[in-house]
């Protein structure tokens, strides 16, 4: 059924348009004045000014080192497997390859490449990594002059990644377990 919406009849004054025009000119003039003289600009001039990124921001994934400055990654290749756009390529050390540079790890990758052109910053690699060796960090503007330049190798990833000491996951698991112990805390 058609519904008729009764439109408001305009008064003569409104029909003249003029009051609306003057109002519009006033509004725009106010805005122009504010931007020009009071500096109320909404534009962020990007390369000079930057965002403050929120915690949990997912930028480029980098490999991290532990507190002893040794590689945390154990070349398990889970991240390579889980990566949706297949951005990660790991070359394992092989049977007689280099040993891990830290204790209680068997191996570390001979080469670890992330193609930043493919990476979609999804964070799956960070999520899946059993060793907490890869983290999405706060870099978002990666640039390069060639495709090959955008494939970051192990050395570069490690140097960009910085240090995240220890393994937090057991602590987290412990906290979780403790939380479950006294689950119905409040009744």
């Amino acid at each position, binding site marked *: 059924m058609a519904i008729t919406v009764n439109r408001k009849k305009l008064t003569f004054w409104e029909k003249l348009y003029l009051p609306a*025009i003057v109002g*519009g*000119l006033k*509004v*725009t*003039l106010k*805005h*122009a004045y*504010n*931007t*020009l003289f009071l500096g*109320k*600009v*909404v*534009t962020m*001039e990007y390369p000079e000014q930057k965002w403050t990124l929120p915690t949990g921001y997912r930028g480029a994934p980098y490999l991290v080192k532990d507190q002893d400055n040794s590689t945390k990654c154990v070349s398990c290749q889970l991240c390579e497997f889980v990566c949706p756009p297949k951005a990660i390529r790991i070359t394992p050390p092989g049977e007689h390859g280099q040993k891990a540079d830290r204790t209680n790890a068997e191996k570390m990758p001979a080469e670890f490449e992330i193609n930043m052109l493919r990476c979609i910053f999804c964070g799956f690699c960070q999520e899946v990594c059993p060793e907490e060796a890869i983290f999405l960090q706060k870099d978002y503007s990666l640039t390069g002059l060639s495709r090959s330049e955008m494939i970051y190798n192990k050395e570069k990833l490690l140097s960009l990644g910085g240090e995240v000491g220890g393994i937090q996951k057991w602590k987290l698991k412990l906290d979780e377990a403790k939380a479950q112990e006294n689950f119905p805390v409040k009744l």
Partner: protein
Amino acid sequence: MNWNFIIFSLVKIAIAIGVVQGIVMYSVLAERKISAWIQDRVGPNRTAPPFVKYIPVVGPFLTRLGVFQPLADGLKFLVKEDFTPGGVKKIYFWIAPALAVIPAMLTIAVIPFGSNIGAQKMVIADLNVGILYTFGIVSMGVYGIVLAGYAANSKYPMFGGIRSSAQMISYEISMGMSVIPVLLIVGNLNLSQIISWQSTHGWMVAYAPISFIIFMVASFAETNRTPFDLPEAETELVGGYHTEYGSMKFALFFLAEYSNMVSSSAMMVTLFFGGWTLPFWGLDHAATSFGMGIAQIFVFLAKMLFFMVVFIWVRWMFPRFRYDQLMDLGWRRFLPLALVNILITAVWLWLRS
């Protein structure tokens, strides 16, 4: 006809065209800057030739102001590939931009942009029928647009062209009608005479305010500016009549639009705001010295630039009219209003005489 006349005319033409082009270039910048300010933005503030950053203070300031942006834009238009799409009607496609831009330039010829410097009148052609000439030339501008729309051989430019022809023809009538009271009051078609009448009697806008309003609105429509920019309504017609154009040919349409703005502003200043006169500082009569002549040119330019800013300002505050509203406004409001205005003026003049 003597050599003196020819040489001075050529000099005046060269200067007038140069100045108009300069104004056009920088009104594009003004358009972008003013729109930015109105929308709380910054506007073009990066472009600069490489040496500018070594100039202290002034260099960065000019860069932030975007002073070099028009140069970059112009260069970009010049070096772009001049592309002619496959299905267009070639001859018309090539003629259209020229047809749009030439009338826009020609109107400047009769505008008195100053009183005189020495013995030279500061008008390129002091025609006795200045106003008629302007209207004749202005109405030619529509051909460029219609032809562009037709030549593109594609539907949206076609719509743009058709809209524009209808719109321009409708508003030309109200525009023509709106100046008749001015002519009645002054009793002369010569623009210089109209200005000298205003210098003794005061600005025309006080005598014929309704004429001024109609003229102003009609010139918005004539120049295809918002709120009457239906021929190039981006949201409906892709780009309007110049959808298929690129590089310098597109730039010519741009040029035409802004030159039209310049000439409409100049006309408004001449007809209603006393042209190069100012009621104080002794600038209200024809110049007697060189400096005064120059000052009057600047007075004229200042008044004209004010109207340019109004054009731009209105564009960034007004939504577009619907097509039927546009026609309604043109034919059923402004035309009768203009007629009544003529009648009232005539009766008033008759009663006074």
